[in-house]
């Protein structure tokens, strides 16, 4: 049996498969349909200090091979999370990563500080990349200085695994990757959703209440892979690859491109046990191909020597 464990900063995951923030509730919501003990970890819905209502309906539109969402970080707030959700999560044998969203640097710090005082949280993922809120979100995530600043401030507050979740909606994601790596982040989660929109041409109205939303699912996998590849070439810290991962083959593409671990997002909506199947699939793949350690796959893309990769985006 291959060793599937991977390390991100101080955090050891039993396998490189996590569920992505916002796509699996708070982690324990669908016990009938999934067994989270078989995956590497759970990333919670983004938590803010106060509960957030989120955006008005409609929040969801299907597109070709993908979907747009404009949830707007609807969440119960960190206090209720600690009170009502965390106790249940502690019972799972998997890493619990709290995702934090905020509209100010202080709010990030305050939420993290609150969580840091709790048992049972193994790491943090900092969402500086939500396209669906007016404050924070992309206004932070598209500014390399603020992104680095948030990293620096949070790094001081925790020795636990600190992941910065970046947006693909920037010219050079490598610039952001270098920034957060320089400030001591343990890893980079890539990608959050891609800004997109859809129109009901009969009514001439946007299909999402907020006009634009975030595109996810198989449609964005090629974009996500390119961003992961770019970031992995730019920094030494682990990348957690996200975007359109539906099956084991997709997960392998991300590992080969340079991701140390991966997250399954939209696929959970279609099959709540998709991540579990992928974790099992990675094991089978390694066994079938005599790969003793899954981490030996990371960054093994073979690029033809006679071809100089077009890296104008780097």
């Amino acid at each position: 049996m291959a060793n599937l464990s991977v390390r991100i900063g101080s955090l050891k995951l039993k396998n490189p498969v996590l569920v992505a923030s916002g796509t699996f509730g708070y982690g324990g919501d669908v016990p009938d349909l999934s067994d989270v003990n078989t995956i590497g970890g759970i990333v919670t819905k983004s938590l803010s200090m106060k509960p957030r209502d989120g955006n008005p309906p409609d929040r969801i539109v299907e597109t070709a091979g993908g979907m747009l969402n404009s949830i707007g970080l609807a969440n119960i707030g960190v206090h209720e999370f600690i009170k009502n959700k965390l106790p249940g999560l502690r019972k799972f044998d998997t890493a619990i990563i709290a995702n934090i969203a905020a509209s100010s640097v202080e709010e990030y710090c305050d939420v993290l500080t609150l969580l840091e005082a709790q048992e049972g949280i193994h790491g943090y993922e900092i969402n500086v990349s939500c396209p669906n809120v007016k404050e924070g979100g992309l206004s932070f995530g598209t500014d390399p200085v603020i992104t680095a600043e948030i990293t620096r401030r949070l790094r001081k507050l925790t020795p636990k695994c600190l992941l910065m979740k970046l947006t693909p909606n920037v010219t050079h994601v490598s610039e952001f990757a270098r920034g957060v790596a320089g400030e001591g982040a343990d890893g980079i989660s890539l990608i959050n959703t891609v800004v997109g929109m859809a129109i009901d041409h009969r009514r001439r109205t946007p299909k999402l209440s907020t006009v634009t939303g975030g595109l996810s699912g198989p449609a964005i996998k090629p974009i996500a892979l390119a961003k992961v590849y770019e970031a992995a070439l730019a920094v030494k810290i682990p990348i957690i690859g996200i975007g359109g991962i539906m099956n084991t083959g997709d997960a392998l593409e991300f590992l080969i491109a340079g991701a140390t671990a991966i997250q399954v997002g939209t696929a959970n909506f279609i099959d709540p046990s998709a991540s579990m199947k992928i974790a099992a699939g990675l094991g089978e793949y390694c066994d079938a191909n005599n790969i003793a350690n899954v981490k030996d796959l990371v960054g093994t893309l073979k690029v033809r020597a006679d071809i100089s990769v077009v890296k104008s985006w780097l």
Partner: protein
Amino acid sequence: MRQGFYRVESVREIAGNIHLLSLHAPQIASAVRAGQFLNIKTRDMYLPLLRRPFSVYNRNGDSLEIIFNVVGLGTRILASGPSREPLDVIGPLGNAFGTGGDFEEAVLVAGGLGIAPMPMLTAELKRAGKKIHTYIGARNGSQIVREHMENVSVATDDGSAGSRGTVVDLLRTHLGNSSMTRPKIFSCGPTPMLRALAALADEAGIPCELSLESPMACGIGICQGCPVEVKDGPRKYALVCRDGTVFDGKRVVL
């Protein structure tokens, strides 16, 4: 709720553009209640990407039936007949109509495909010993389904069956002309209809349960994609898929 692969037994058109699909799903059939829905992967690939939600129309031993209109790709695929592979279904989902409560006469109001949950609801209400009045609204007579329903009055937009006009207007007239003993309204249909109905129920002081629709990504409460504004409670929105689909008409802002 459970996820399973279930064989499609048959698909046939039962009225103008309305298809009935029968699914061999004993595990769901034994658990489902009126007002609950199934979330169906219409094809094993990324187009359509998401599951499609359908109310349970009827239970038939180990089989469950749904009815639907062909409106887009997902329903087109379902209508094209049983495929060799079984369908990937999650269900039963959502809460259910409150059939057991403190009322005597049940007023079922359905607009368009909102008839979908009514046969199961009728059966449950009958078991609970309630008297049933059913009001069905449709565009025209060819789109009326009445099977498994009781005491049906019909309104059509074009007057081609029953009275001309909306089903809510029809109900308003009936309520004016008759007196019911401790009635309760149960409804499913397009949002404008539900809005009008909730207003009527409020006026008339009749309790009223509405089954709502919303675009859904997951159908199981993990995406926050299906909000409906609610008047009570600390949160602005409830989730249609998990907190509903059935809501007290007084509670929601439509």
